[in-house]
């Protein structure tokens, strides 16, 4: 379980550009967003628009309202603290600069995601977070586990994003615009649209994969393979909250229906309860925190299901509260890992003396997490209970799920931040605990203190972030619930007391419970192993279809290609009502007969000879005949090209043929009848298509245009060349790029063989 095996060099300077520039960027962005708090809490929303691809309705538009500002401040504020922490945590790492670059890119993508007003812009940022998080999770790329976890996160969230893209496009067709603010202004247009259900399902798949809702949750605990600052950042305020953010953002446009209410309630409740139970089972501190993150995501989904003020206030409050304490606790776990080299709950104990500051920060954050007064976590929990009892779906179900999850949260808070510091136990000999440097403890201290500050002054949080956020989701006329430390003696208070009692009981009996859970887990189905089976199946089917299709035999490739042509074209002709052209024998001149005779003679020679050189020369004869046809019908450029290509092909094949064995007439006979049948079939079908095409009137619009404009506009009399290099230069550019790629590919195949193969 030794997580601290990063190749760091303690002698490296801490003050370095790659270390401090990201901190400065994050702090500057935070400072830029801060002044908007005033106007936003006064009920304004701000919109910034730049045209991007106007023809597709895509604009680079950003919207600052209560919701996006809350997220923006969390992303940049926590970002600055995490980056500062990382600058010390990974100080002197070989790829330190790379790591900080990935983190910064991730922050910018995340910020773009929450600020975007255009759905397609949002999607671009959404995918950027997928890619940057892939790079971050797989940062320790030398270990197989990190690579697997990164790929798993990429594939799962990437697949979800595809569904989301489809959903966004459907929204665009249904609402006629991709601007969220415009869709919002249209009222219930999406809820009443015929495509509502498909849109909802696709968008929910995207959100649920990103925010790791059951049963697509398993990538998130695996993503803990990343260095601790990544976990602290991605799993507290950012990456996984992106799905929750989109749920909140789409709430006015997709929410308020029975389907929305029940889907979110059920998935959220299952995720929350399942994750809290799993969190109890973990012995690795980081894994335990990862599952509590899942629980938080489930809870947020659960409360976003409803559309009443209490529930949404609960969601918005919990969003902020969770980001604060979860980032703090992840950073604390990183400090423990850094200071002792272990994250195993059984090995750790009595760290309070060696790490006083960390202990204090961990304690405050954990009290907020467990929901003790006077911390903001307590208020958040009270609001959650009040919200749960007011939901339209099933108050007892929601309240029960919240109660169970919160009780387990109390227990996990004890496991993570009480037991390692205060439990009377001598550390294993090899652990040598020491306090972290200030760059590392300053983040947890600030975040934990904020939890206490907001607890004592809940109005500051309510006015600045929560109320504008609720207004952004439910509309300005919505009534947010008041955040109060003492709300009187009421049902939520009793539920709180029950939570504490249950939570402390679970904490005391955690060991037998954990053993029981681990024993149960061995028999239960594992989603993670299921994922492996899916991937293995995919690989096996890829190998199978490669074996079938890519046989490596040139004759078979050609046969399949031409058979496809025959069936495809022939089938199309039949489907379109068959071949119906009246044929007339054309007036042919002597030169036409000569060309026909040349082509037929060349074809016959190719078919009958047993010499490869003669066969190729025969094919060349056919090619020259075709070139002559081009000349007769006035296309000299095409004819010259055809002639030259034929010449080169004959020369190159001739070179190759010298080394090949003679054609074996007996070997060819076995499949000859079938080949001949196919050849005749293709010939007949292509001839039929040509006759049908030439029977109708030709569309001369393009020809006329090029004839008329070639000289006056492009200063060229050779229309073919003018088209190639001027009118259609971009096409030509693409084609010559293909030529280069093909040549390099063939070169690699010819030259790339190993010396043994050449023998």
């Amino acid at each position, binding site marked *: 379980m030794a997580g601290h095996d990063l190749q760091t060099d303690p002698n490296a300077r801490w003050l370095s550009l790659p270390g401090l520039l990201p901190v400065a960027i994050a702090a500057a962005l935070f400072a830029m967003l801060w002044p908007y708090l005033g106007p936003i809490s006064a009920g304004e929303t701000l919109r910034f628009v730049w045209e991007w691809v106007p023809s597709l309705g895509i604009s680079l538009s950003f919207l600052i309202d209560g919701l996006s500002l809350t997220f923006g401040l969390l992303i940049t504020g926590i970002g600055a603290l995490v980056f500062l922490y990382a600058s010390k945590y990974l100080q002197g790492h070989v790829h330190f600069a790379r790591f900080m670059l990935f983190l910064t890119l991730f922050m910018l993508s995340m910020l773009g995601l929450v600020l975007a007003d255009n759905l397609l812009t949002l999607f671009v940022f959404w995918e950027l977070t997928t890619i940057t998080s892939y790079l971050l999770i797989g940062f320790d790329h030398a270990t197989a586990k990190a690579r697997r976890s990164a790929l798993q996160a990429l594939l799962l969230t990437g697949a979800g994003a595809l569904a989301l893209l489809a959903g966004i496009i459907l929204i665009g067709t249904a609402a006629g615009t991709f601007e969220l603010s415009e869709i919002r202004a249209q009222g219930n247009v999406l809820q009443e649209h015929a495509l509502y259900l498909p849109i909802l399902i696709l968008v929910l798949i995207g959100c649920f994969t990103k925010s790791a809702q059951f049963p697509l949750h398993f990538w998130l605990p695996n993503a803990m393979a990343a260095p601790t600052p990544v976990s602290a950042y991605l799993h507290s305020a950012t990456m996984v909250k992106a799905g929750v953010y989109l749920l909140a953002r789409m709430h006015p446009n997709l929410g308020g229906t029975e389907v929305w209410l029940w889907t979110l309630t059920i998935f959220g409740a299952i995720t929350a309860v399942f994750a809290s139970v799993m969190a109890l089972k973990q012995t690795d501190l980081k894994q335990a925190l990862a599952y509590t993150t899942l629980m938080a995501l489930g809870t947020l989904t659960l409360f976003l299901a409803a559309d009443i003020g209490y529930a949404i206030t609960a969601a918005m409050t919990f969003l902020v509260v969770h980001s604060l304490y979860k980032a703090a606790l992840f950073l604390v776990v990183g400090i423990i890992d850094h200071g002792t080299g272990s994250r195993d709950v059984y090995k750790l104990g009595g760290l309070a003396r060696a790490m006083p500051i960390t202990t204090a920060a961990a304690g405050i954050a954990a009290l907020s997490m467990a929901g003790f007064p006077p911390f903001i976590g307590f208020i958040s929990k009270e609001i959650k209970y009040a919200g749960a009892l007011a939901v339209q779906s099933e108050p007892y179900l929601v309240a029960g799920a919240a109660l169970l999850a919160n009780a387990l949260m109390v227990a996990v808070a004890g496991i993570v931040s009480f037991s390692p510091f205060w439990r009377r136990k001598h550390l294993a000999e090899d652990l040598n605990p020491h306090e972290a440097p200030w760059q590392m403890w300053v983040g947890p201290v600030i975040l934990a203190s904020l939890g206490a500050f907001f607890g004592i002054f809940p109005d500051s949080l309510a006015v600045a972030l929560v109320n504008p956020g609720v207004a952004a989701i439910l509309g300005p006329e919505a009534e947010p619930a008041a955040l109060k430390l003492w709300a009187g003696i009421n049902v939520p208070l009793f539920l709180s007391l029950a939570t504490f009692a249950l939570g402390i009981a679970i904490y005391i009996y955690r060991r037998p419970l954990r053993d029981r859970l681990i024993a149960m887990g061995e028999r239960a189905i594992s989603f993670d192993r299921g994922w492996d089976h899916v991937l293995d199946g995919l690989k096996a089917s890829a190998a199978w279809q490669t074996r079938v299709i890519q046989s490596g035999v040139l004759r078979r490739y050609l046969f399949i290609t031409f058979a496809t042509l025959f069936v495809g074209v022939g089938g199309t002709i039949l489907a379109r009502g068959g071949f119906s052209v009246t044929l007339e024998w054309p007036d042919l001149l002597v030169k036409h007969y000569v060309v026909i005779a040349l082509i037929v003679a060349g074809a016959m020679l190719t078919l009958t000879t047993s010499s490869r050189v003669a066969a190729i020369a025969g094919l060349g004869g056919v090619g020259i005949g075709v070139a002559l046809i081009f000349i007769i019908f006035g296309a000299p450029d095409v004819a010259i090209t055809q002639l030259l290509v034929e010449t*080169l092909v004959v020369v190159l094949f001739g070179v190759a043929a*010298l080394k090949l064995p003679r054609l074996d007439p007996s070997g060819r006979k076995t499949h000859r009848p079938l080949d001949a049948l196919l050849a005749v079939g293709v010939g007949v079908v292509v001839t039929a298509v040509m006759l049908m095409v030439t029977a109708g009137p030709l569309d001369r619009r393009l020809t006329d245009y090029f004839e008329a404009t070639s000289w006056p506009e492009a*200063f060229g009399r050779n229309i073919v*060349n003018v088209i190639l290099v001027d009118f259609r*230069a971009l096409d030509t*550019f693409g084609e010559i790029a293909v030529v280069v790629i093909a040549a390099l590919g*063939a070169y690699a195949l010819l030259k790339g063989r190993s010396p043994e193969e050449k023998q």
Partner: protein
Amino acid sequence: MNSIILLAATRLLVPLLLVFSVFMLLRGHNVPGGGFIGGLIGATGFVVYAIACGTDLARQALRVPPEKIAMVGLGIALFAGVMAAFFGDIFFTGQWLFIGETEDDKGLPLSSVLVFDVGVYLVVLGSILTLAFALEESI
């Protein structure tokens, strides 16, 4: 290949083919020809030379590796397209300069279109020779 007839013919043919290829390239805008055809003719010249004297000598005569020629050609073609941007036009709009233009004579025309065609010429020449030399050397 040791053939006196081919060697003697090569001495005559190769220079002719190369000159002819440039001629076809330059006249292409108004009469049959152009970068593609020119490149094919030029490639034929070097392929004939390689068959007669071997690829080592042919590579020496070419001086630059053919795959480099192809890629430089692609770069030149791209540059010709980008040139339009410097004059405020859309990508790949032809840019023309007429030297010594009078009332009834356009003078000597120079254009980004010609630069593009030179790129095409080099791509075709380089790609075919990459392929041909590798093929001849591998057997």
